[in-house]
């Protein structure tokens, strides 16, 4: 148990130290933080509930657009925007969850795809509200909590995003360590048995789903505020796949997957986009196949196994 607390602390510490170690890469760091938050929320659904979905971008995107539209038309106060983004995504989570969570496996995947496509089409067609294919532009954010204005160097952006991620991690931690989290694992491991011990499976999954949606929505809101722009491809199946890949890279259902996978993926993507952009899909595809056949638990499992051999202790 204390090993976990130590590692949790390490994660927070890493978030705090990163800008000191790599001040020139703050923008990259902010991007990593935001997608890590999104991947963390996906971990709840995929890693802990055991539900594979390709529709998570819908929540991120809805959060982004809601926050962006809120900033443009109502108030440019960032914290309020986060709440709006989270709430909008949570609402979508309630609505889509009602349909999605009645099925499993292929049907669930298909419905999640359909959800993203529906939201994407809607955003595309409601151009007067969302800017359509051009994206939502002209957002100008007010200072965070009235005190910290977004600066040109991206310092405030990073700290803002990192604090939100840290808080998100605390929520995640709390959920995962609670009885609720344990019952989610039970549902993942043997849904039928959970019903046979009296668990209201559907209700539990819906709650987890909505919380995950809200968290992804907050991540989307952060993105909108930090970039002061929302692109339509925040609502794409491609983005859903990217988040899933990041999570798998780090290891799903293993607490730290999002924190390992997001930086590795984003850095890899950044590097390859500059050096060899044409073959990005090839490398990622091969990486995925390698993970599936050689390291299905991702980096967390790999590091864990390494640590076990070195230290002889269980993680």
């Amino acid at each position: 148990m204390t090993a976990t607390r130590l590692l949790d602390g390490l994660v927070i510490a890493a978030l705090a130290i990163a800008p000191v170690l790599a001040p020139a890469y703050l923008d990259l760091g902010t991007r990593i933080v935001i997608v890590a938050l999104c991947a963390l929320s996906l971990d709840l659904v995929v890693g802990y509930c055991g539900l594979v979905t390709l529709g998570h971008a819908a929540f991120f995107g809805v959060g982004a657009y809601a926050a962006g539209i809120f900033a443009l038309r109502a108030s440019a106060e960032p914290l309020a925007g986060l709440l709006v983004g989270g709430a909008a995504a949570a609402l979508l989570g309630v609505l889509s969850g009602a349909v999605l969570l009645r099925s499993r496996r292929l049907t669930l995947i298909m419905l999640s795809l359909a959800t993203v496509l529906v939201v994407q089409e809607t955003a595309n067609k409601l151009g007067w509200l969302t800017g359509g294919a051009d994206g939502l532009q002209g957002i100008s954010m007010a200072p965070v909590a009235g005190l910290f204005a977004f600066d040109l160097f991206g310092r405030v952006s990073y700290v803002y995003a990192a604090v939100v991620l840290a808080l998100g991690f605390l929520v995640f931690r709390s959920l995962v360590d609670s009885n609720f989290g344990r019952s989610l694992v039970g549902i993942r491991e043997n849904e039928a048995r959970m019903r046979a011990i009296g668990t209201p499976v559907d209700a539990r999954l819906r709650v987890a789903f909505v919380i995950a949606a809200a968290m992804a929505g907050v991540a989307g809101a952060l993105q909108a505020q930090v970039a002061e722009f929302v692109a339509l491809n925040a609502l794409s199946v491609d983005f859903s796949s990217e988040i899933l890949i990041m999570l798998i890279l780090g290891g799903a259902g293993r607490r730290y997957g999002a924190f390992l996978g997001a930086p590795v993926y984003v850095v890899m993507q950044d590097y390859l986009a500059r050096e060899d952009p044409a073959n990005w899909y090839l490398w990622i595809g091969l990486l995925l196949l390698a993970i599936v056949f050689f390291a299905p638990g991702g980096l967390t499992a790999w590091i864990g196994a390494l640590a076990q051999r070195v230290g002889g202790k269980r993680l």
Partner: protein
Amino acid sequence: MLELVDLLVSLTFYGTAYGMVLYLLAVGLSVTLGLMRFINLAHGVFAMTGGYLTVTAMSRLGVPFLVAVLAAVIVVGALGMLLERTLCRRLYKAPILEQVLFSIGLIFVSIALARYFFGPLAQPITLPGWLSGRLDVGIGVFPTYRVFLVGVGALLAVAIWAGIERTRFGASVRAAVDNRGMAESVGINVDRVFMVCFGLGTALAALGGSLGADLLPIYPGYPNDYLVYFLIVVAVAGAGNVGGALAVALAFGIVDTMIRYFLPDFGRVLLFVLVMAVLYRRPHGFAPKIHA
């Protein structure tokens, strides 16, 4: 009034042709899901490969259309069996997540290869003379190509039904779906049944991809863009429900065509919401076992 009827008949016909293509694309996936419980989201890759092979054979080698299609189907069927034997088989007992990741990895690699060899644009396909032009089929005059699609689709549906219900192989498939252990103890080589079924499924996908190349253009984004459509057919019909897959594919094709005509703006959204409504009532589709 007569014009409206004519219009509806026309749309229904076009929808049926489109539905037939979807059926060919989806039926292999339905069988794989029902038989091996293997979620192969990369099914579109085989359709796309079939399409590329056909187009290449026709344009680079001057092979006639039907021969090219046949060749593509055979090659992709063989590739499918090879893939099943080497990679897919190892994932049958794996969690869904791994199967999905495998599919995504396969899709990504094939997108990269397609882009590398053929470029990012859609492949132009020149239909042979006997397929261009129009044909009078009694209820109206339609492009020969569409009539061909409807005809081929119907023929294949019958062939698949006969294959499942009337052949020994079909019986082994049904037995393996019902109870793998028992099937093995009666002497059925379930591994071989799986491999052949997978190959047949990919071959049918290649057929759908090649024949349907004019409706669903062949380009690197193919496996991603059209995935949701054949997933819808499989999910609504129910895994392994081959006869249902035909009905759903046709229904979907017709409804989609009508919606595109009458409600071009919010059509796709409406279609998906409709699908969600259907699955809300029946989360498992319409029938879970393989039967024609």
